[in-house]
């Protein structure tokens, strides 16, 4: 049996040991999708390759999302101006280790990528009015100093609880470590009641970090306007619904809500913002 490469290459742009930025399609507060979506809009990004889906995804049917049939995609994009290689993908259902190695093979062999960043959201019991934080996990301790310079949290302690499994980003970080590629998982806080919609402040903070780290020179004007609009909508809801206002006030004062209150707040905010 001839073993062929699991990826297709469309273009080989001139990147000089770029950084690889990875995001998955399933994410809290659509953080990765929106953050990278913004880069697509603001930077000159072009598609350069993809991982072939066979063997990694189920082909027993198709998924429908937002009324539209979906097909799994795993694509590489490049931004030569900023020396960035971006990988956007659905999480593979099978052969995750092989898939993640294929991602790093592509980045390492064809572009000599030396650094990996994964983007993801993490649910927080915070109020949306509080500043977001980004917690980081590194696979080489030297990276911590660099990240601390941007004010990111670099002292996370975590162990997968029983009955759960590590995230795909954690596994990618570990695979990168085995291949001596320096890597960082970026976990941006998303208030739990914005987890099902866009958390624009979390997206902006993540973009802010990428902007500073890779000197992207992003114009945040459009995003600032969207954040202003989202804040006004939530303010409107708070004025209309005193119970929701009370819940948010409690969170702002550092008071935890009950499980039922959490559920109610998330439901009301999601429905209101999706109207």
């Amino acid at each position, binding site marked *: 049996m001839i073993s062929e490469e699991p990826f297709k290459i469309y273009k080989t742009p001139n990147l000089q040991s770029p950084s690889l930025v990875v995001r998955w399609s399933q994410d809290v507060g659509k953080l990765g999708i929106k953050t990278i979506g913004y880069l697509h809009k603001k930077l000159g990004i072009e598609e350069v390759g993809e991982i072939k889906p066979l063997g990694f995804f*189920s082909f027993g049917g198709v998924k429908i999302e937002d009324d539209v049939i979906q097909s799994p995609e795993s694509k590489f994009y490049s931004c030569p101006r900023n020396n960035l290689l971006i990988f956007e993908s659905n999480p593979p259902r*099978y052969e*995750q*280790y*092989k898939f993640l190695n294929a991602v790093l093979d592509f980045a390492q062999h064809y572009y000599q990528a030396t650094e990996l960043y994964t983007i993801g959201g993490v649910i927080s019991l915070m109020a949306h009015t509080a500043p977001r934080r980004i*917690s*980081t*996990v*590194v*696979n080489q*301790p030297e990276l*911590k100093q660099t990240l601390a310079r941007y004010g990111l*949290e*670099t*002292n*996370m*302690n*975590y*162990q*997968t609880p029983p009955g759960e*499994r*590590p*995230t795909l980003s*954690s*596994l990618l*970080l*570990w695979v990168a*470590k085995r291949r001596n590629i320096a890597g960082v*998982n970026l976990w941006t806080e998303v208030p739990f009641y914005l987890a099902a919609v866009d958390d624009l402040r979390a997206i902006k903070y993540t973009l802010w970090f990428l902007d500073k780290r890779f000197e992207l020179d992003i114009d945040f004007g459009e995003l600032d306007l969207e954040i202003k609009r989202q804040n006004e909508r939530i303010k409107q809801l708070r004025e209309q619904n005193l119970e929701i206002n009370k819940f948010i006030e409690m969170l702002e004062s550092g008071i935890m809500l009950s499980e039922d209150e959490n559920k109610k707040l998330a439901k009301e905010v999601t429905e209101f913002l999706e109207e």
Partner: protein
Amino acid sequence: MSIKFYQQPKLQRPDLIVGWPGIGNIGIIAVDALREMARAEEFAEIEPWDFFYPKRVLIKDGELKDMEFPSNKFYFCQTSKKDLIFFIGEEQPTEAEGAYAKGEKAYQMANLVLDVALKFGCERVYTSGAAVTLIHHTAKPRVWAVPNRKELIPEVKGYENTILMSNITGRVSQGTITGLNGLLLGVAKKRGLDGICLLGEIPAYLQGFPLLYPKASRAVVEVLANRLGIRIDLTNLDDLTRQVEDKINQLYEKIPPEVKDKLEQLKYVTYAKEEKPGPITEEDKKRIMKDIDKFFQKGGKED
């Protein structure tokens, strides 16, 4: 896909005893108990990342320290009768949802395990699992013995407390052993190794619950320990059995009386073919099973 050896023990025609998780974890508990009783020493492992998704990440002070995968380890020991290799797999590799191995990965895993066995001159493989059947949980489980060659039948007939498929009413020598506990013996047969699967009985009405069934593991341990010359100490297994029995009894109390009446009749079920009719007829057995199925919405099967 590779095997990592920590040491190369010198072994004389060892038997291989293998355990993977399954219904009631009967096989893996039995094999692990035997490994412990035999004080077997770890000597190799199958690298897990091609087969399994990790089960735990450890992050300390912002740094990824460890990624833990399900373990697949080999152990060895020498008893008064035989040299032994144990293999214990914490999970069965699957290509889709489900707890039981199937497809290419399962076949690869089976071959890797046998590669190690053959490297050390092994000629015989034992696996163990569950036989889901119509018994009551207060009954002493028997062990169904399924060899991978006809020539082994006279031997297994001599094992204590065991029964062949052909001696079970309604089975007509047929059945399925789901997952790697069965597949391994099929692959072993292809590669010229003798193999015997020992299935400890578990009541059909318990198979759907996330319960261990150490009582059946104990029955398997007794058969294997005797055969392999392992001195047995059943204290731990008996303690575990008592704990699980308490849980089962609590569960049993919650069963509606009309279903419990049917389950009580299982105390008198004799599934082995008999010369004379037993206290419960074949018709009774069918009716009991139908009623139980209606309550638990499950079908009988073995792993």
